[in-house]
């Protein structure tokens, strides 16, 4: 048990510290790259929560695909580090206040609420259980997902494409 706690603290550090870099770094590419350890840290948290399949998906989609997309867009627009330009707006004090207040409020509520905790283990074959759930109980969610993908692909292509070409 103590091992799990140590792993959690380590993963929390791996998640939160790069996350702070993501929102504060003046170098936009480094900010985007800091997303990678954050995503990997979150996937480690999923391991602790016995969600193997979601772990792999987190790495595959977030770290392997979305980060690449973000890096592409940074390289295709501003191009460089973004260091010569101001990266933050005038809301920094307000932002700190709001984010701090939100964190405080959330922690206050979350840690006091009496959650109906149930002890038990997750299914050993995670992917199998998810597949069964997706194809039976959540079949509608599953089908609608493909519609969402279709619509966002069409939308994104229309928006990103140069007109008339």
């Amino acid at each position, binding site marked *: 048990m103590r*091992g799990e706690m140590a792993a959690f603290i380590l993963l929390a550090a791996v998640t939160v510290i790069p996350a702070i870099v993501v929102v504060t770094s003046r*170098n936009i*590419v*480094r900010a985007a*790259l800091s997303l*990678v350890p954050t995503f990997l840290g979150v996937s480690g948290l999923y391991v602790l929560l016995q969600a*193997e*399949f979601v772990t*792999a*998906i987190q*790495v*595959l989609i977030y*770290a*392997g*695909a979305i*980060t*690449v997309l973000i*890096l*592409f867009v940074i*390289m295709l627009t501003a191009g460089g*580090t973004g260091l010569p330009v101001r990266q933050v707006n005038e809301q920094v004090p307000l932002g700190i206040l709001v984010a701090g207040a939100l964190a405080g409020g959330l922690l206050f509520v979350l840690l006091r609420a009496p959650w109906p905790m149930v002890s038990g283990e997750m299914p*050993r*074959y*995670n*992917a199998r259980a998810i597949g069964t759930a997706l194809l039976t109980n959540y079949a509608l969610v599953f089908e609608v997902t493909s519609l969402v993908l279709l619509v966002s692909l069409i939308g994104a292509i229309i928006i990103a494409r140069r007109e008339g070409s």
Partner: protein
Amino acid sequence: MSWALEILKASLYAVIVFTFAAVFAAMLGVYLERKISGWIQARVGPKHVGPQGILQTVADTIKLLQKENIVPRNADFLVFSTAPLIVTVAALLGYVVIPWGKLGDWILIVRDLNIGVLYFAAVSSLIVIGILTGGWSSNNKYALLGGLRSASQLISYELPLGFAIISVAMMAGSLSTVDIVNAQRDVWFVFKQPLAFLIFLIAAAAETNRIPFDLPEAESELVAGYFAEYTGMRFALFQLGEYAEMLAMAAMTTVLFLGGWRGPWLPPILWFFIKTYAVVFFFMWVRWTYPRLRIDQLLNLSWKVLLPLGLLNILGTGLVVTLAR
């Protein structure tokens, strides 16, 4: 206490696998590449260091160790130094789920993850980040262009690769690599899924930047692509990552389609290596025989041929399996 023991054991495994990859994938790989290219082009290849030049790569490694690590003034130092590490470590992480063989009842695998092949696909997708940032951080036009091209190529071929893996998972009913090998007790999946095998082979060659898919580093137009600015050991790490990934892909081809360690007479480990190096030889043979593709041909092949074929293959397999149930 048991945790500490496991960590120690895992570190030991990691050191062994790392050394194995450095020796068998990179050193032997580079040597074989040079020998085979020489053989195909009717030359001799490396000959002077050691018998038949077998120590050539060792000499090269020692040479690279003495080289200065130059970081260009305009480069982004932190990103520049991290990029080769990402490529190498991501390539090595895939080795966790490869079953190398069987000794009695004991399967030689670091860890048989439930989601083995998905894990393999996930960690190899991290290589893109290393290559893209390596190209970007050099602040060199050719390197950046090479990095962008390489990233487009790698992401384009990741999809057909995934489809081929899924076709095999459908036949085996599991994502664990050991289960997949065990499912090929009677017939290798290459005979049940020839199309998926072809797709996987092409996509694997593209994922490891082999000619005819080596556009990112095309010497004649891009100097050396994304690692143009890298020198000495950092350059060697990129090479190590690339060859480690090639061996991992060849091993994965063996696991998914060629029955893994299965085979008559010879011990299983030997079978596994024979099959894996046969695939490696195939990659090299193709590399020194075919000319480079143009980038539009490259992307067309992935998006307009392999992707729809892979999808149709999955649907066809699903239909057949469902009907035959």
